[in-house]
């Protein structure tokens, strides 16, 4: 041990350890570099992914989501703790480096901290270390005693992660303690008679330790000083090299993961980045079949997951007991990567990812088909991990291998031959509009060579063919008519938008449907498109190219209400309490949250409540398009959970703005036994029902000319109003 004569040269206490410290530094850094290099191997073998554009926008997102911890407060307690820990780590980073360097160069002072800034920085970091230490204690207590449900690991996914989490939290606590003791020992020595006193932040961890050490002898303090340094050094490097083996790797990868995160989330990943649609036929294998089929960024996602469980906590499939938990999509892939690309030894790969467990596959087919692509997981993830693209890519791989459930094969085949999943005749597509009774009150023209229009109403399959949903089509047509829109439909020329076809991995079939529709839309010569189906809306807006601008009917209605073209009669039933259910592809995927609510709030006397889960935390009704044909393994329907949420909120009318939501919610009302207590209505149906149309309704202040103009427009008989 060092012979301590005086405390005048505190750092001399470390001199004897210089060689040891230097060795640890070098070993630690080398070891870390080696592990990281090994971790990069699969990324290099992964698929291309263009994430190097728009550096300024990406930096902005780093500021928001990384430095600003934007998503964290969505979970109040855990988020706050994380913000403190994150801020503490950032503040302590400089201190950690100077401390490390002091071990080999005793008089080192970090540039910029030589003058007055030094003591100020020291005080800040004293507090930072204390706060991080306390956060660790709270986090350990949470993990051990309160055990939030979302951290639990269901048996089918392996053992609990608690031990690993506590081990890591403890290591950080030890690091903070060692760091504080190091500062305290030094300060305690200095506070002995005749020394210049270095101030420690009052009530901080170093401050308390220093007070405990005041009466200790110089040699004891020297030993403590040296010991604390050694523990700090060893813990630091152990953590550094251990992190790439588990969830703490996000400390290193998060910055990159957020910088490279997808900017245009609403646009689905192409089959291959850099391969145009025309050249897709030359791509031999579609989608993700083995681990190396993931893009490098998707692999980085796997490394970056912090296992916080927020994705699965919000996943509707997970909530109803389907065999899908987004958290484990990531965790299982990361474990696969660690196992098949070991730090020591050769990489071995090529196992199919989807298949039976016995053959080494990590995902089951049901797991991958269970996702409704609602986007709740992605909305929540603080690290911007992407899920939908991966699910779709895995499905593309399964479709390519012919591995598609029988229940989906029929509708897919029908989409191929008839352009709709029901196998209905094309010529019957416009039947909903051509019914005599309806035609007389509200003519809808089918666009053709001699029959042009300004606006296309894109109806899509379900609204065209499903008896119940045709009412949404008729309501939409009547609203468009009411506001004087010159519109038409494509009729037999309209094919399914292909929205779910694409999301179910049948890219080539989607392209055929899309190309047909694009051609038909262009031929029709329309200048804008309106649809009442959020899935068609999303497809037209993001999956199609070179088509006129598209709007959802709720946007049109909201605008016309503001412009005064639509006036409402007051609601008749005073006992009705309305709750608006956000369709995933209107809300989360297109951020249309306010328009439908504004419309509802414009109806006089309408009482509206919000469900606990609303807006970007809306809970999927069960999925649309092909998902209606899929037979999931589940304990409960998503829709049933959703209508129960509405009942809890005190609503007895659920308003939605999507035909698929209507299917699921109406079914769920029956399954949940809420018939008679709860009803569902589409926004268009409600608007159509409430529009003040005829007569001089003076309370809305219409002038005579306006009344005249209105009476020319479509007059509605109640037979068509829902």
């Amino acid at each position, binding site marked *: 041990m060092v012979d301590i004569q005086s405390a005048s040269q505190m750092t001399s206490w470390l001199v004897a350890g210089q060689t040891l410290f230097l060795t640890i530094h070098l070993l630690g850094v080398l070891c870390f570099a080696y592990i990281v290099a090994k971790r990069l191997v699969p990324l290099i073998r992964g698929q291309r992914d263009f994430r190097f554009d728009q550096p300024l926008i990406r930096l902005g997102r780093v500021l928001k989501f990384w430095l600003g911890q934007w998503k964290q407060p969505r979970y109040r307690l855990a988020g706050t703790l994380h913000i403190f820990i994150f801020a503490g780590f950032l503040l302590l980073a400089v201190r950690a480096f100077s401390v490390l360097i002091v071990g080999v160069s005793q008089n080192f002072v970090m540039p910029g901290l030589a003058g007055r800034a030094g003591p100020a920085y020291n005080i800040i970091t004293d507090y930072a270390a204390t706060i991080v230490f306390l956060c660790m204690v709270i986090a350990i207590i949470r993990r051990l005693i309160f055990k939030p449900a979302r951290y639990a690991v269901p048996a089918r996914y392996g053992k609990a992660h608690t031990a690993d989490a506590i081990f890591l939290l403890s290591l950080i606590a030890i690091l903070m303690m060692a760091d504080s003791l190091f500062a305290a020992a030094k300060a305690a020595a200095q506070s002995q008679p005749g020394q210049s006193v270095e101030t420690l932040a009052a009530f901080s961890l170093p401050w308390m330790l220093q007070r405990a050490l005041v009466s200790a002898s110089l040699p004891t303090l020297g030993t403590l000083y040296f010991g604390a340094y050694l523990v700090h050094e060893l813990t630091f490097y152990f953590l550094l090299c251990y992190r790439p083996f588990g969830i703490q790797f996000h400390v290193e990868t998060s910055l990159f993961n957020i910088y490279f995160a997808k900017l245009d989330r609403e646009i689905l990943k192409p089959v291959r980045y850099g391969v145009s649609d025309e050249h897709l036929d030359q791509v031999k294998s579609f989608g993700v079949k083995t681990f190396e089929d993931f893009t490098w960024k998707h692999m980085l996602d796997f490394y970056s997951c912090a296992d916080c469980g927020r994705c699965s906590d919000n996943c509707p499939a997970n909530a109803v007991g389907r065999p899908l938990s987004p958290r484990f999509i990531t965790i299982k892939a990361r474990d696969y990567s660690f196992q098949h690309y070991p730090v020591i030894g050769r990489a071995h790969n090529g196992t199919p990812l989807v298949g039976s467990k016995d053959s080494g596959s990590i995902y089951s087919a049901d797991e991958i088909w269970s996702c409704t692509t609602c986007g709740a997981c992605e909305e929540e993830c603080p690290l911007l991990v992407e899920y939908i693209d991966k699910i779709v890519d895995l499905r593309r791989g399964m479709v390519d291998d012919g591995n598609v459930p029988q229940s989906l094969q029929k509708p897919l085949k*029908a989409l191929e031959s008839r352009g709709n999943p029901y196998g209905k005749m094309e010529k019957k597509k416009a039947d909903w509009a051509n019914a005599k009774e309806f035609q007389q009150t509200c003519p809808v023209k089918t666009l053709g060579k001699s029959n042009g229009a300004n606006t296309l109403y894109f109806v899509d399959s379900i609204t065209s063919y499903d008896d119940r949903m045709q009412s949404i089509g008729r309501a939409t047509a009547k609203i468009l008519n009411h506001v004087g829109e010159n519109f038409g439909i494509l009729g037999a020329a309209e094919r399914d938008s292909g929205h779910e076809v694409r999301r179910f991995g049948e890219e080539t079939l989607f392209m055929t449907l899309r190309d047909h529709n694009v051609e038909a839309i262009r031929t029709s010569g329309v200048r804008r498109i309106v649809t009442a189906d959020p899935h068609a809306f999303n497809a037209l807006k993001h999956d199609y190219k070179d088509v006129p601008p598209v709007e959802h009917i709720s946007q049109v209605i909201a605008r016309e209400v503001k412009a005064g073209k639509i006036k409402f009669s007051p609601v008749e039933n005073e006992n009705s309490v309305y709750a608006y259910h956000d369709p995933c592809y209107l809300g989360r995927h297109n951020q249309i949250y306010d328009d439908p609510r504004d419309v509802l709030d414009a109806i006089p006397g309408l009482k509206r409540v919000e469900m606990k889960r609303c807006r970007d935390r809306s809970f999927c009704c069960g999925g649309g398009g092909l998902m209606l044909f899929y037979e999931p393994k589940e304990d409960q329907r998503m829709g049933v959970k959703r209508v129960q949420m509405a009942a809890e909120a005190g609503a007895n009318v659920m308003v939605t703005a999507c035909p698929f939501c209507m299917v699921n919610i109406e079914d769920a009302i029956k399954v949940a036994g809420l018939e008679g207590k709860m009803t569902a209505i589409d926004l268009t149906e409600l608007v159509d029902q409430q529009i003040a149309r005829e007569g001089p309704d003076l309370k809305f202040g219409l002038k005579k000319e306006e009344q005249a103009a209105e009476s020319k427009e479509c007059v509605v008989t109640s037979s068509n109003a829902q």
Partner: protein
Amino acid sequence: MEILVCARRVPDTSENEIQLNGAGNDIERDELVYSINEADNYAVEEALQIVTRVGGTVTVATVGGEDDEEILRREMAMGANHGVLISDEVFGGSDGRGIATILKGFVQKGHYDLILTGIQAEDGGAQVGGMLAALLDYPFASLVNSIEVLDGKKLKVSREIEGGNKEINEIDLPCVLSIQTGINEPRYVGMKGIRQVASLPIPTYGASDLGVDPGLVGEAGAKVKRVDYFVPPQGKGAEILHGSREENVDKVLELVTAKGGLK
């Protein structure tokens, strides 16, 4: 194992509204969409699975016209090694025995260990499999719902007996089997797969290629002739409900309860 699957293209019953034509001797075919006969698709899947287990090739053959190439390509996209179109003007109007005679000619041109057909065509009468076996003097098993290859010379096949029991038989190769739907889960054939086989050549064989006597096939050779085609009149006891979905469900419940089906 060299396997031949005899397949047929039929109007897809789930995607068409079948109506009688004006003459009343056939259905209206103008707006129909066609696909491979469902049971034949199961037969091809079974053949592919056998080949995966024991090796060999799968050939799919159909008797028909140019339009029928569509199903051959679909099955090739599924994994069949060869597609063969058997087509000749003189084949038109063949009855079941005529088709079996044509297929016999094709079988004898090659070396097939196993010949599979679907249990029956959706617009047919389950004739061809049995007749083909008889014409070839091969053993035949019908309604097969599982196949196990015992060695190079024998198969163990099972069929379901009315009431749900299973019967297992051993059968010598070469043989003809008619395949029941449900024997497997046919794989999906995507658009991409179909596109990739779009330009592969499909050989066509006519009567002379196969050495088939034109007098035995086609209209000339047909001894079974269709004389009428009609929708049977509504029988007694059959009631068709015409209400809305809810009304129908209520009505069905009422009827079943009234007949003592529900208590």
